[in-house]
């Protein structure tokens, strides 16, 4: 172990656009080859995914974006703290970028870590318009590594985003090929008995809900850095080195459970922010989240990075190896997840009284209203979770409860503690309840029962600290993303609560986050599942007051409208 280790040194080994403050991006029609199929899509600088943009904390970046498409486009810098006019959401921050137009973004970089960028127009992001952002910190990082790689995941589908949206609206189960069959009825019957299985099916049939409703959009090929499982993206290492892997989930719809058989992963960043290191065997990455982990392969052999989708309908795969061409075993996917009655805990108007779940082991929680984390304030969830493998951020008995493939440690939100808190702890000035609502049969998604098209903006006041209460009343997981300001996720760790840009809310649970309202302007706030956001689970947030508000109003008054 005499290798000199310099944090961030490896930045130089990655192909970068250069360290200067000016960058050029073109938005292009590209061909995307997943190994399973070839599909026209949208990319940056001629490729999907686009380039890794490497910024430096403290610099002001200028990014010239040229739209070579025949439709409007936009780029949103996901997770970056910047003036709202630079945030890249058509109709909220700016009008969008016209075909043939070059739009120049300019903003100061006030943070470090792993982020990403993507189009916020139509379904361009699921069609391929995304890339990674790596920001080198001003100060030394609280961890060391010899090498780093961006590991950017997506769920590339052979259908275009428009077509997927239309199919889902026409038949919400269009892409679901994990539904319960006659065969499963018989196998469940032999396990649990015929009557109990029948009762179970009747209970779900009565609700008109599917246990198999974990992944709406199946049939994708999981890509890592643009490569399908067969194309096998490979990162090279020398045994004994510490490697920083910057995982980014740029999927339209898919959560991935990530593991590297044979290696422990030490999570050091979540959503670009340093967390107290926690060593895990596996972690689940929500759509739009990022996790940075450090691994240390000691042996002269290949290791598989295996990313199974949460619903086990597909996977992405890559390899870490001492030399190109080496491969390790690719594990089988585990059995498809099934929702339980616990995941339905947040639903209104369900009559659970006459259902007998006793023998079906459906893990019905005592309190059907779901878990309320506020009552556990001050307790250490990670300590609590010890001994049983249950994660307090899932409904007790949830069918989505993550379990490590090797029986070891699976990362929970409860394990995430800020390494160096950005904000002082203070009482929130008020609480805003956001019920995550929807109707699977109509494939309509909303907040507090109101779709974006019918909704008034959420108005916040500059300087307040708002406590958001997410109550998930649907049976799907929603990664909620507030633009422009940090989401301080309440894991019960007080001042050590981590700050994130995307907060996953599991079915049947209530999750709290607080936001220091410290950026004026107007911002998007939405579920990051592409087809949920497009179906209405979206809000505009207006921050009233603040230092630049008058100027901001004037700037934006000139620009009306836009085109998503």
């Amino acid at each position: 172990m005499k290798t000199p280790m310099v944090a961030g040194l490896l930045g130089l080994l990655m192909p970068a656009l250069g360290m200067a403050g000016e960058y050029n991006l073109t938005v292009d029609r590209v061909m995307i080859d997943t190994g399973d199929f070839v599909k026209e899509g949208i990319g940056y600088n001629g490729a999907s995914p686009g380039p890794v943009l490497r910024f430096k904390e403290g610099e002001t970046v200028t990014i010239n974006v040229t739209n070579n498409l025949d439709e409007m486009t936009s780029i949103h810098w996901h997770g970056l703290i910047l003036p709202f006019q630079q945030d890249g959401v058509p109709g909220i921050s700016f009008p969008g970028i016209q075909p043939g137009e070059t739009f120049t973004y300019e903003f100061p970089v006030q943070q470090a870590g792993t982020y990403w960028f993507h189009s916020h127009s139509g379904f361009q992001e699921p069609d391929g318009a995304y890339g990674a952002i790596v920001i080198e910190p001003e100060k030394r990082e609280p961890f060391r590594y010899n090498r780093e790689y961006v590991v950017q995941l997506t769920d590339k589908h052979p259908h275009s985003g428009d077509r997927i949206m239309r199919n889902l609206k026409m038949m919400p189960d269009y892409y679901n090929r994990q539904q319960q069959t006659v065969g499963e009825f018989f196998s469940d019957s032999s396990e649990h008995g015929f009557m109990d299985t029948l009762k179970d099916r009747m209970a779900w049939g009565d609700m008109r809900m599917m246990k198999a409703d974990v992944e709406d959009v199946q049939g994708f090929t999981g890509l890592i850095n643009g490569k399908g499982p067969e194309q096998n993206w490979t990162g090279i290492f020398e045994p004994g080195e510490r490697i920083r892997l910057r995982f980014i989930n740029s999927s339209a719809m898919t959560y991935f459970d990530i593991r590297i058989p044979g290696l422990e992963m030490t999570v050091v960043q979540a959503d670009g922010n340093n967390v107290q290191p926690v060593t895990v065997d596996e972690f689940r990455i929500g759509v739009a989240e990022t996790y940075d982990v450090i691994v240390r392969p000691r042996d002269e052999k290949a290791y598989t990075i295996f990313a199974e989708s949460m619903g086990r309908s597909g996977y992405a795969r890559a390899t870490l190896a001492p030399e190109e061409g080496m491969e390790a075993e690719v594990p089988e996917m585990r059995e498809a997840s099934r929702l339980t009655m616990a995941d339905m805990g947040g639903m209104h108007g369900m009559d659970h009284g006459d259902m007998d779940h006793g023998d079906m082991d459906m893990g019905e929680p005592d309190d059907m209203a779901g878990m309320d984390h506020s009552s556990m304030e001050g307790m250490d969830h990670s300590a609590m979770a010890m001994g049983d493998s249950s994660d307090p951020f899932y409904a007790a008995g949830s069918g989505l409860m993550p379990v490590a493939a090797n029986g070891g440690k699976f990362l929970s939100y409860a394990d995430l503690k800020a390494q160096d808190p950005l904000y002082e702890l203070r009482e929130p000035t008020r609480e805003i309840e956001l019920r995550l609502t929807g109707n699977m049969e109509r494939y309509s998604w909303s907040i507090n029962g109101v779709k974006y098209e019918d909704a008034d903006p959420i108005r916040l006041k500059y300087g307040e600290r708002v406590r958001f209460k997410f109550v998930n009343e649907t049976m799907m997981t929603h990664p909620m993303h507030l633009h422009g300001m940090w989401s301080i996720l309440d894991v019960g760790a007080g001042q050590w609560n981590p700050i994130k840009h995307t907060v996953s809310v599991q079915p049947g649970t209530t999750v709290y986050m607080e936001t220091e309202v410290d950026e004026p302007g107007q911002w998007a706030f939405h579920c990051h599942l592409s087809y949920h956001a497009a179906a209405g689970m979206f809000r505009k947030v207006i921050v009233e007051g603040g230092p630049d508000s008058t100027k901001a109003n004037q700037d934006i008054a000139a620009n009306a409208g836009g085109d998503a």
Partner: protein
Amino acid sequence: MNGSKVLVLAAAMSVSSTAFSAGTHGGSHGASSGEPGNASEASRTVNVEMFDNYYEPEEIDVEPGETVRFVVENKGNLVHEFNIGTPGMHEAHQDEMKMMVEHGVIQGGKLNRAMMEMDMGDGHSMKHDDPNSVLLEPGESKEIVWKFTEQSSIEFACNVPGHYQAGMYGDVNFTRGLAEQ
């Protein structure tokens, strides 16, 4: 708090304490980390500052047989350890430290001293009092005098869960002839 787990932990710690303090347990891995030194024999003082999550300096040079007085100060916001040992010893110690976190003995920036002192029965406790290491809250400073008896693969490391893996360790490089200068 799960009583039986605490007992297991306490037992594990007392076993490892024996191994550490013996200092000559190297036979099996062909390496020993040295032994507690006598302050009067210390050739010099090395100041080690602990930050979140790294040391300054990140390596030190010693001569076989040299006794060094370490003054360790925690300048970070989290609890950190300064522990002298072989990589194998650190690995074994990390399991114990993990249990200390799970039992709430180490809580981010705080140490639960009362719990560390608690008598678990049979004279076991979760005291972290091995001579080769110090466990410090933010702002604390302590000393270790250590004799590097023979050349071997030694690191100083923080075994608070995740910290070592994130890179909070430093190399002890053995040099010859340092004493002559």
